[in-house]
């Protein structure tokens, strides 16, 4: 894939106000998203995935959430510091977002059709009737035909997530941010929603920023992966490279956490887990944030590791990578 990136994030630092003063929750986050591509953003809870997404659509928690450094460029245009009118055009028009909880992400007092129609009326100047008709078409497109007059509570979880996708896509944004789109759903419905996202991507060339903690979802969906830990991207590369040759111990640990059913009957398989917890962002250890939980930590990990290339388009922020580079 060539051409300028649709979305380019670089050197992004972001902080949140807390009772004890501002806490930096994102450090030097950088990635790019090209047209029609799926970038997976992986990490545990609290690693900064959702904050990254919210920064991209300018919806950081207020008051207190601010981008302190870096840039977010949409087709080369800087969004950091853009005014509210510009952001409103970005939201829904250029970047759509779907959320983890389809139960709570739809307004319970309006029908799903009205909710989709409302954004079309506000932004595309459609009349009430035309907007409702378009909303119905969008719902049919995502596999919920004939339910535009239903209230969210009348739809199942999977259908609500489809309705949410229809709402996010109503104005045909080029980028769709999917924040844990399947986490709250049953496994069978998960697969259907992922199929739908792939289908939409093929049909409209939508680029997808897929946020998940599930390496299995990444393996199924992503072209490229960025692994986040404690507000920092610790490894990124093509999905194939990262999944088959993870360079950062944290990526390795995440991949080891994917449950694998064994073919042999009777054999019990203990699920892998990563010892310890994600550190508090207010009290990050000096150097590599993962070092306290890392089985391979050594003396150098007390200094923050830069990003080392481990292959074409594949890099990891870990001293071990440098060590192997030196060794070979």
């Amino acid at each position, binding site marked *: 894939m060539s051409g300028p990136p649709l979305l380019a994030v670089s050197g992004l630092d972001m902080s949140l106000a807390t009772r004890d003063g501002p806490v930096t929750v994102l450090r030097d986050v950088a990635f790019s998203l090209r047209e029609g591509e799926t970038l997976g953003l992986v990490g545990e809870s609290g690693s900064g995935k959702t904050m990254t997404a919210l920064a991209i659509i300018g919806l950081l928690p207020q008051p207190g959430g601010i981008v302190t450094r870096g840039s977010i460029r949409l087709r080369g245009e800087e969004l950091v510091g853009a005014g509210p009118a510009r952001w409103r055009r970005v939201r829904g028009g250029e970047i759509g977002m779907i*959320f983890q909880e389809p*139960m709570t992400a739809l307004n319970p007092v309006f029908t799903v059709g009205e909710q989709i129609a409302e954004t079309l009326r506000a932004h595309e100047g459609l009349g009430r009737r035309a907007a409702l008709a378009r909303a119905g078409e969008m719902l049919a497109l995502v596999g919920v035909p004939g339910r535009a007059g239903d209230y969210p509570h009348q739809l199942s*979880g999977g259908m609500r997530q489809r309705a949410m996708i229809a709402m996010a896509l109503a104005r045909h944004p080029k980028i769709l941010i999917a924040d844990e789109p399947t986490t709250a759903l049953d496994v069978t419905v998960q697969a259907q929603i992922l199929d739908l996202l792939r289908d939409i991507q093929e049909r409209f060339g939508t680029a997808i920023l897929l946020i998940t903690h599930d390496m299995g979802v990444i393996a199924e969906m992503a072209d490229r992966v960025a692994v986040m830990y404690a507000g920092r991207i610790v490894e990124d590369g093509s999905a194939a490279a990262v999944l088959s040759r993870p360079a950062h111990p944290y990526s390795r640990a995440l991949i080891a956490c994917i449950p694998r059913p064994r073919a042999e009957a009777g054999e019990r398989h203990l699920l892998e887990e990563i010892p310890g917890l994600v550190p508090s962002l207010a009290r990050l250890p000096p150097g590599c944030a993962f070092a306290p939980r890392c089985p391979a930590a050594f003396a150098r990990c007390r200094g923050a590791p830069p990003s080392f290339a481990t292959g074409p388009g594949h890099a990891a922020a870990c001293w071990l990578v440098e060590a192997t580079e030196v060794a070979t």
Partner: protein
Amino acid sequence: MSLLPPDGGEPISTGPIATGPIAAAERPEPAEPTPLGDAWHMFRRNRAALAGLAVLLAIVLMTAAGPSLYPVDPFEIVSAPLLPPGSEGVPLGTDYLGRDILAGIINGARASLAVGASAAALTMAIGITIGALSGFYRGWVDQLLMRVTEFFHVLPPLLLAMALVTLFSPSLPTIAIAIGIVSWTAAARLTRAEFLRIGTLEYVLAARSIGARNRRLIWRVILPNALPPLIVSATLTVGVAILFESGLSFLGLGDPNVMSWGLMIGSNRTYMLDAWWAATIPGIAIFLTVLSISLIGDGLNEALNPRLRQR
């Protein structure tokens, strides 16, 4: 003002059905009525609330049709003073000047209902606006508006209303405005609390994520979801406003050209021992009206409260 607690007789929902059904292809339940229809269904099962609604409708009907069915001027002296109910030509008796009490009840209802409804509307309008802005914008807007609210909250309402009515002419609009000005703080706090709660919910973030403006978020996204407790509060405010208007009239601060129940109680109170009916009958009218409104508010609370609603 606090919301009346539900009477506890309703069965609590036994379990959430809201968590994910299995397949997207399945239709969870046949299309059912709107949330409003749902609420009416709940309301209908509350007999006390239905009785309240019937009484209030009867009072409204009397207010609308009464003056033409019983065309007696409430200010006109029709007979000897202080005739007991059941006397010739005056079914509910006469007051200390010999005016027809039934005519007073019929015509006084208009003042009570008009002032009650318009004062409640004003109360809610001020309260919802202040509370919505406060709870939506938070930060310094919230600080400022809440200090203003507290200022109004600590003023003695009756004294302030009396001062306002005395300053301007004691007419029905003035009285309604005065009641509105002294009683909006509870509605503001309630609205603010609802906005603070709903503002953090995901569908508000989702609405933002598709480019909704603040104006739309406040009025079209958050407010409709905050309505159930506000509707209950508005209903109860009507009752409070009717009492307030009666109180002002009782103290002689009502509109002297309009017959009202409070005025009737106030002017006949000195004859309580000789002619109990002259002050008691309008008192019963006030009591019935406020009671029926409270029962309706109670029923609405039950019907609209999501924690009591069965899904």
